[in-house]
């Protein structure tokens, strides 16, 4: 066991933290969000130049071959900055789907564009699409809802009745209704009506969206930690500086205790994010499935607690669009809701039997 960052990881953290601090305050973010697509090409290029978009992909695929911990470091910084560029949708979700399910040849076709930031990918995690064989091609019909990043994607990965398909954003028969999401970023509802594809568009390896969704959960956990820690820090500062009744409001024990409860939840979320990062290499499907269910459940619950009480402890200013807290509130709420909310994760964990079996640790001899 060793839970410290390595020197390289610390350097990565420093440089990503610096970018976020310098280029991602509330005003910057507003400017980025006002650009076409709701995010900044310039920031995206900065992330590409730093190598962040290559980070999780293996050396053979042309990536940096870094792991869950490095992704967590980036996610945490992005969470603090409330980054709106499509890292989750393109790199984490679409990228993981391709790198796990595509044949090496297919990966070599699609991943370079994803890593260079020119291709923007998205993965439909909630879809009902039928793929039918027609001659030596395929025809896709159906719909997908709330495809994260689907509004800006140039490449959509669509799970169907017959495997995952990679669908170019401009293919005939594809209709998209893109929209902005509360909490930042965008999504689309997608309709496929007689979309014609070939075998080359069908991801040839084994597996579905499972690994990609797990990677997404790990990313969201890290992002949530960044947002929660920042919200707690702002709240603690506010308690110390805001005066009422002639004293800083921090003298009130009820508020101190609430802040301590928030800290407990932030630390739990941090543990969840670390666990998520380290679980990425786990080979046992059951261990990963139960682990990620617990992680997302805890992140959702802890994030909501911290979001709600950071607003409460700020008083009226906490609900102002002008204050960062309200943005953390919305992002944390959204994080809790996408890729499975707490309730559905708990139901899944229960279905999987949880972590502790019903049988005694060891039998009693009496």
């Amino acid at each position, binding site marked *: 066991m060793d*839970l410290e960052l390595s020197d390289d990881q610390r350097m990565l953290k420093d440089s990503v933290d610096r970018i976020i601090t310098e280029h991602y305050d509330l005003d910057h973010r507003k400017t980025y969000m006002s650009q076409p697509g709701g995010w900044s090409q310039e920031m995206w290029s900065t992330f590409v130049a730093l190598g962040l978009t290559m980070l999780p992909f293996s050396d053979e695929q042309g990536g940096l071959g870094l792991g869950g911990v490095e992704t967590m470091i980036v996610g945490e910084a992005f969470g603090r900055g409330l980054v709106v560029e499509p890292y989750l949708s393109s790199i984490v979700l679409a990228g993981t789907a391709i790198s796990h399910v595509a044949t090496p040849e297919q990966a070599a076709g699609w991943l370079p564009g994803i890593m260079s930031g020119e291709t923007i990918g998205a993965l439909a995690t909630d879809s009902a699409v039928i793929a039918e064989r027609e001659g030596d091609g395929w025809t896709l019909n159906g719909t997908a809802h709330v495809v994260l990043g689907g509004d800006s994607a140039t490449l959509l990965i669509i799970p169907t009745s017959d495997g995952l398909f990679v669908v170019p954003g401009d293919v005939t028969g594809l209709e998209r209704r893109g929209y902005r999401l509360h909490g930042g970023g965008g999504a689309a509802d997608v309709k496929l009506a007689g979309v014609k594809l070939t075998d080359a568009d069908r991801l040839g390896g084994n597996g579905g969206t499972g690994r990609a969704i797990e990677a997404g959960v790990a990313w969201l956990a890290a992002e949530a930690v960044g947002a929660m820690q920042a919200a707690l820090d702002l709240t603690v500062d506010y*308690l110390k500086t805001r005066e009422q009744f002639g004293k800083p409001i921090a003298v009130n024990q009820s508020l101190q205790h609430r802040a301590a409860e928030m*800290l407990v939840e932030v630390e739990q979320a*941090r543990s969840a994010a670390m666990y998520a990062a380290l679980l990425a290499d786990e080979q046992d499907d059951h261990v990963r499935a139960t682990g990620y*269910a617990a992680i997302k459940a805890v992140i959702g619950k802890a994030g909501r607690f911290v979001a709600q009480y950071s607003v409460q402890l700020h008083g009226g200013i906490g609900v102002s669009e002008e204050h960062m807290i309200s943005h953390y509130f919305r992002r944390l709420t959204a994080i809790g809701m996408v890729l499975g909310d707490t309730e559905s994760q708990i139901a899944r*964990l229960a279905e999987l039997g*949880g972590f502790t*079996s019903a049988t005694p640790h060891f039998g009693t001899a*009496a």
Partner: protein
Amino acid sequence: MDLRFTAEEEAFRQDVRAFIRENLDPVTHRKMVEGRIPDKEEIVAWQRMLNSRKWATPSWPQSHGGPGFTPVERYIFLDELHQAPAPEPVSFNVSMIGPVLIQYGTPEQQERFLAATANLDIWWAQGFSEPGAGSDLASLRTSARREGDHYVVSGHKIWQGMAHHADWMFTLVRTDPQAPKKQMGISFLLIDLRLPGVTVRPIITLDERHEVNEVFLDEVRVPVDCLIGAENKGWDVTKFLLSNERTGIARIGMTKHLIRRIKRLADGDTSILAKAAALEAELKILEITQLRILDGQRRSSAADPRSSILKLKGVELRQAASELLLAAAGPAALEVRHDDAAFGEDDAEWLGTIMPNYGILRAASIYGGSSEVQKGILAKTQLGL
């Protein structure tokens, strides 16, 4: 970063498990499984069995008879005890007074008490709280005045856990009532409970059991060689003791044991099982938090104030599990049964303790630093509030 235990640590876990399985008396084990409290003799026998491997004192250094565990080994050891479940070594002895004797005791005091404390030849009680001094411990009033080679001690202590089993009590007394600050006039004394003037009286708790007591001290003459540290410097010793008491064990294994029982009693009830899963999710993550704090302890032996997180969340989940177990058992759990009732034929799911244990577990957020006190510690040390 790596969360995995080493092969040696995994082997150690198997070794502990095998030791418990082979050496824990089956009757004691069954009582623990069913949530009954073992008898004094059973607890003593088990602690001596552990002590035969130096395992009764997991946190003591090798130089003083401990096993020299790393923080991770200590965690694994306790986790196996909790999950078995087997009795923990008596905490008053091994987590409280033992480390104090090692840190502050004279060589004579160490010689006189340490080995006997480890082997439970002496059972210690903790004589800190008073009717007027609970969370605000330093306001204690029990007085000790020096008369030649003795302190003459008078006062009223309350809530002494298991003092009816105890031979000695470590106590806080006020030796200087004029001291400018209330923390400054306190001394740390060891009192032989057989001395004249000592009366131990039971307090029956809401589980209808006898676990805690009041101790009345009426002009008890305590030899001065029973003073630990310097006179009027008892508060330093106390802070040291309390920080050890809180060195971050969330008792996750105990909650796992409750969850096992919940799953058996749930009998497929999906609503209970979903609630159990919700607890398990948080418990799994708390395990990671526990490991993070252990990892920190490997780098620094200073008491980690983040341990308060473990106490708060650990107790919250354990109390929630005991409540869910009550729900899983249903109204049948209301039947009053006593711990000394005969074992049932194949009645492994003894319901008799579920309601009493649910009740008495409320105390876990009151003693050892109440949840409010823990939040105060976090607000102050971690948030600067």
